[in-house]
């Protein structure tokens, strides 16, 4: 538990902690009424047998290309994509740029190069290009994935953690987190447009094994534990009853 105690300046993302756990001013109403009352896509990164995304069938259409796996193509870069002959070169380039954009905003973030490299390997981490944030480090892209959709290709950044087998890739999240440098305000983020998918990956978590937290003031020494949880047993002799409703 050594790191984080050296009195370094807080290595928070530029957005700061202001918003951590606080209610935001009400978002503006969504731009237009959605045709559908349900989520456009549902993604699970680690919960089941592996990352999976399922798309909502478009209302009134017969487009049921739901599972992406069979049509997903993985490449390490755009030139490998275009020389493969499987995807038109123009689409390879467009998708590469799209994947890079997604990478800048969705890659897992770390407060130090060292923490990041402990998970992704030496020389496999850097700072995002899109903003000059001191103290924000993200893994490098190990490649990108393309999924054929009815209207072109969708792209996503791929990563490889330390110890991942060759050919085993991971994806990061898909919903745009608040942009780090802008005022967090107009995030009508829940409405459509966030169509996404993820390629297959193994099921371990991004951060479960991570060391020091993003918070530089995080390191503490517990002097007592176990002060929560005892009341639950008064309501549950077997321990099987849910605490929730």
């Amino acid at each position: 538990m050594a790191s984080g105690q050296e009195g370094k300046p807080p290595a928070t993302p530029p957005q700061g902690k202001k918003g951590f756990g606080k209610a935001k001013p009400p978002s503006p109403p969504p731009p237009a009424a959605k045709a559908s009352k349900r989520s456009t896509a549902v993604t699970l990164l680690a919960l089941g047998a592996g990352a999976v995304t399922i798309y909502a069938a478009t209302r009134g259409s017969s487009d049921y290309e739901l599972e992406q796996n069979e049509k997903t193509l993985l490449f390490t870069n755009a030139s490998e994509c275009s020389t493969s002959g499987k995807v038109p070169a123009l689409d390879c380039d467009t998708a590469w740029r799209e994947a890079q954009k997604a990478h800048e905003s969705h890659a897992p973030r770390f407060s130090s190069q060292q923490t990041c490299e402990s998970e992704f390997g030496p020389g496999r981490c850097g700072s995002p290009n899109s903003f000059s944030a001191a103290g924000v480090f993200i893994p490098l892209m190990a490649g990108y994935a393309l999924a054929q959709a009815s209207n072109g290709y969708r792209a996503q950044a791929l990563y490889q953690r330390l110890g991942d087998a060759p050919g085993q890739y991971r994806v990061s999240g898909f919903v745009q987190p608040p942009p780090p440098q802008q005022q967090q305000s107009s995030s009508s983020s829940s409405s459509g447009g966030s169509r996404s998918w993820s390629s297959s990956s193994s099921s371990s978590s991004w951060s479960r094994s991570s060391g020091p937290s993003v918070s530089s003031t995080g390191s503490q020494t517990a002097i007592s534990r176990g002060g929560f949880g005892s009341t639950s047993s008064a309501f549950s002799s077997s321990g099987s009853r849910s605490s929730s409703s």
Partner: protein
Amino acid sequence: MRRLAVAPRANFEARARELGFAFHTIDGEAYWNESACYAFTLRQIEDDLEAPSAELHQMAMELVGRAARDEALLTRLRIPRQAWPLVADSFARGDASLYGRFDLSYDGKSPAKLLEYNADTPTSLYESAVFQWVWLEDAMKQGLIPQGADQFNSLHEKLVARLGEIASGGLFHIAGLRDNEEDKGFVAYLEDCARQAGIETSVIGMSDIGVSAENKFCDPKDRWIELMFKLYPWEWMMADEFGASPAMANTTFIEPAWKMILSNKGALALLWQMAPGHPNLLETYFEDDPRKSALGGRFARKPLLSREGANVMLVDGEHVAREEGPYGAEGFVRQALAPLPDFDGWRPVVGSWIVGDEAAGIGLREDRDPITSNTSRFTPHAILD
């Protein structure tokens, strides 16, 4: 609103495995039921469930604004004195709510009636947001329900977006009890959503939490718990040893402490007092309020704090139905009876989700018993116009 018999999907088992739905059968009984679905019209969804839920949420927030600093009301709700500063401060700071679930009695014709508000630790989130949603896609694809059907269910999108708004910028702790399959499934789903929002997470057990000499709660790796989702009721936290620790002020909790006002059945009486006659509210009084006699011999008696139907008593003239349980020491409310509608012997309760400040979808649980409990079956729904 209809209850339709539907053939189960051929790939149900594979789907459950693929999507990590481990608790579809509880104690040998099916908890997930797709041999039927509830069908709504779009008008029923939008006018009778979505809009009223948003309005109920606004009323609930108004009630919190009135009660957060009102010692008489906090006393009325039996919220312990030690919790008062937590309630008032969390509301004044604007500590964010992630979600809540209204339980509604609705028959497709009359206005939906609020039975209770699960504002603190509502579950059935994963089955509502994910498994129900996938069922609709599969069922359309397999021709089990008409193509072009829809579902009132943008829960997944809204949860990921809301988490991104409130939990970005630090390590987000998610705490629950370790020994419950359903709770574990819930926590795993919430962590998945947080990661999709690009948030660094750590899952811990409630009993693993420690406190430091600097009065900060810390996780098993001695990291400060700055922001924590807890699948553990506030009133239990208040009864636990750490509930009185000064460290309580150094962690931001989701749900926040001001939810103690709303997760309490007394809120139903206070809401009625605030908006008597509101079409989506049931006439409700505290048990020690003489006005309760207005309800005559048809009422539900509910403990101020109770979960999954425990200790609820339904009185309909001479007919009494009762669910046993460990709650009720802190008092009761008496609520006008709104019997759940009967569809082929099944009585559904509509769980209507709020994420942030928006109505985000519904999930139905049905039971043969008039009191919905934690063994009721989750049954999917569809919008079929």
